[in-house]
């Protein structure tokens, strides 16, 4: 029992690491990772929505008719996204402004709907929470890692602290739009290399 929960939890961390392995939910991955702070903030918001929606979908899985399940899932997800939106507006307003429209766009993040459809709709609530937590943490770590690469190269800082001393010329390409694609592509290549061995 405990073993299978651990299995559902850990698969999100490497074997099915959302943005890299499943190539889902790329928009926030590319858009908000100019810095580590934004990346992790976005990741945590998504994690919250993932866990809550997974739990509720799993609880209601025998009540929701199969024909209208996608519509029901979307309403459940949208409810939690609205909650996150209001919470962030109240407590971390600066981050809320930086992430902008990407907070409401968690609704259409394929990972959240994908997990509801592929996992939570078929499994018991405690498994669904483990799955949501694992996927969410995997997603947060990926965003943080990409943010770290882009921030350190593009601005020469990590979480605002300078890394390379005053003479460093920032590689601004990395924090701009094209850099996001190239950087994610190269990280995916690196993961493929490691995964092969």
């Amino acid at each position: 029992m405990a073993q299978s929960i651990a299995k559902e939890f850990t698969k999100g961390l490497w074997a099915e690491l959302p943005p890299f392995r499943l190539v889902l939910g790329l928009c926030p991955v590319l858009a908000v990772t100019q810095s580590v702070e934004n990346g992790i903030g976005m990741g945590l918001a998504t994690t919250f929505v993932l866990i809550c929606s997974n739990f509720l979908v799993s609880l209601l899985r025998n009540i929701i008719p199969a024909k209208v399940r996608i519509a029901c899932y979307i309403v459940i997800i949208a409810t939690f996204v609205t909650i996150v939106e209001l919470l962030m507006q109240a407590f971390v307003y600066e981050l809320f402004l930086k992430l902008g429209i990407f907070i409401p766009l968690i609704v259409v993040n394929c990972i959240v709907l994908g997990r509801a459809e592929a996992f939570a709709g078929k499994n018991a609530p405690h498994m669904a929470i483990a799955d949501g937590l694992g996927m969410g943490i995997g997603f947060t770590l990926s965003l943080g890692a990409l943010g770290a690469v882009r921030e350190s190269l593009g601005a020469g800082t990590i979480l605002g602290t300078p890394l390379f001393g005053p003479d460093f010329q920032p590689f601004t390409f990395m924090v701009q739009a094209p850099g996001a694609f190239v950087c994610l592509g190269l990280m995916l290549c690196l993961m493929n290399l490691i995964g092969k061995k």
Partner: protein
Amino acid sequence: MTDYFVLAISCIFVNNILLAQFLGNCPFLGTSKKMETAAGMSMAVVFVLVMAGIITWITDTYLLKPLNIEFLRTLSFILVIASLVQFVEMFLKKSIPGLYAGLGIFLPLITTNCAVMGACLINIKEEYTFLQATVASFSYAIGFGLALVLFAGLRERINIARVPQPLQDTSLGLVTAGMIALSFYAFKGMV
């Protein structure tokens, strides 16, 4: 008139929804392996995005704002888009079966395409008037189609080339997308 023209240019090239705003990347990578699917997806997006842009603008201006319930924007927009897609699908199936066969499988995917929802939210955020919102939605959709078709063309060529194994498929796809984004970056000075 010039204002609308400038708005259209800026939405198609400068603020291209895929390459500068990072919206709709899942279908961008998912449907770009073949030219036909890319063209089908682009058509479906143009169709739905314009209608969604108009309807969400009306919903926001005449329903959410007068009642002071803007916090329900996310929920209401996604419901509007989802039901619109469903409605368009039924309508096309009955009246224009040819077009339905072409767009068929792409229509349901559009509900979770963040380009549609994102463009609607941008329209509201920028406080566009009704006409501006319509022009912007249409231009965003055209920009989406343009980038997607360009990208699909490149990917078809890459498929023939010999690529090192770890770089294959999505990985090189992303790097290629970066190169296209770089070329679109040159439009920054235009508007």
